[in-house]
């Protein structure tokens, strides 16, 4: 029944999905944390920028963002991201850029909700012993906040894994693009769809289970 799989590098395509997910997850964790720090910072300008960024970016459809990186940034503004004569590398980097820009806004909100779980007294006490804002945040608040938002961040990660399929729109050779190729050639929509759906379940289900377990173990008991 699944003999149509011959001649296609399904594992390779899913490996590309994994690479996209991993790099984008890393990038959006860093950028999202910075955004969260801005949103709780005492500087009004930074708070304003963080709020505006999150509210604008998370309300733009991901497809629009990804296509804009390719048609806008690369085609019109000539951005090359250090890959001027390798189209595949360029699309990959643009896709990661788009995914990071988008996912970071969700990461930021998850972390901000974690910050809200930390009792105000903790920050006040930290300030009272003379720590600066960045010290309060990085030494006292964020470590506790992260432990309480592993669950929500797992959701963001799973959503990100599935969102990588949008990168097919600008030609990144990941799972969704191979699926399109196979449907075009083999005319077996259901069986092919099932194979790729199964692939994504294999990717995301263990992630969810593991991070769910981790969030229970690491949660700060209050």
């Amino acid at each position, binding site marked *: 029944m699944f003999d149509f799989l011959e001649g296609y590098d399904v594992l390779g395509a899913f490996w590309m999905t994994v690479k996209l997910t991993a790099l984008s997850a890393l990038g959006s964790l860093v950028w999202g944390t910075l955004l969260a720090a801005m949103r709780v910072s005492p500087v009004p300008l930074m708070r304003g920028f963080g709020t505006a960024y999150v509210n604008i970016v998370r309300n733009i459809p991901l497809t629009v963002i990804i296509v804009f990186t390719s048609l806008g940034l690369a*085609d*019109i503004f000539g951005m090359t991201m250090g890959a001027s004569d390798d189209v595949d590398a360029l699309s990959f980097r643009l896709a990661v850029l788009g995914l990071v820009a988008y996912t970071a806004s969700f990461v930021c909100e998850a972390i901000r909700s974690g910050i809200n779980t930390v009792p105000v007294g903790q920050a006040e006490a930290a300030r009272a012993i003379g720590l600066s804002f960045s010290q309060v945040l990085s030494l006292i608040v964020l470590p506790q906040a992260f432990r309480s938002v592993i669950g929500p961040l797992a959701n963001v990660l799973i959503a990100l894994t599935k969102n990588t399929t949008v990168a097919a729109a600008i*030609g990144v050779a990941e799972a969704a693009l*191979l699926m399109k190729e196979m449907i*075009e*050639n*083999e*005319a077996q*929509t*259901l069986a092919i769809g099932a194979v790729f759906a199964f692939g994504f379940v294999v990717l995301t289900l263990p992630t969810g289970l593991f991070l769910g377990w981790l969030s229970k173990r690491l949660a700060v008991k209050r």
Partner: protein
Amino acid sequence: MKLRKVTAASATVLALALTATACGGDDSKDSSSGSGGGKIKIGIKYDQPGLGLKEPDGSFSGFDVDVATYVAKELGYKPDQIEWVETKSADRENALARGDVKFIAATYSINDERKQKVDFAGPYLLAHQDLLVKKDSDITKATDLNGKKLCSVTGSTSAQNIKNDIAPKAQLQQRGGYSECIAGLQSGAVDAVTTDDSILAGFAAQEQYKGQFKLAGLKLSNENYGIGVKKGDSATVDKINTALEKMVSDKAWDKAVQDNFGPADYKNEPAPKIGNIVK
């Protein structure tokens, strides 16, 4: 407690499976009742200028549309009895199998895999994979493509041909739609766009691009456009074939080609013989 969880889970799975089969049952019932009512449903593309395009005012234009209208007329349906249905590439086989449409005329190349799923009437047009380049471009043969930036649509046969056979060293950029590729060609971000020459001619003939692009005329592959019909419906296939033969013999075919591709300087093949598939 554990046992209850397992029972609940399996009940959910069972329920889902039942719902899924129930849907399937409904669909097949629809198909048998769908043929009545004095209307005919025809599948076309909505987004390919020159072949099948939905105009802003809601009307439809293109070569596929003209052919489908002619065939419908021969089957006994006036133009106002036609109900156009959008059938995207990935959904064509299912739309026929479900009976959503009577037949599909949507740049549907006849190939062996598809023949196992649907029956084909025709072919009614022989197209070739080709390149669209800027008017002053120096790309004249396939090997010129190596190292050049080339655009095609994600997952399309044309994109795969380039990657595997024609010019593996070309920088292939895959985009969501041909209009995005054409935009890239206009801005200079890509050097060539590739797909069937009929589709490229349709884009090049559009008002806003007139005179900017040219077809390279390379004939990189043979695409035999057929009319897809539900598997096993040989009566309809025969009727459509008769209609197509008549369309060619009374010159309506030539007029349709001229109307739709004329402005793009498209050198079309002569009308193919029914059942004559060029490999």
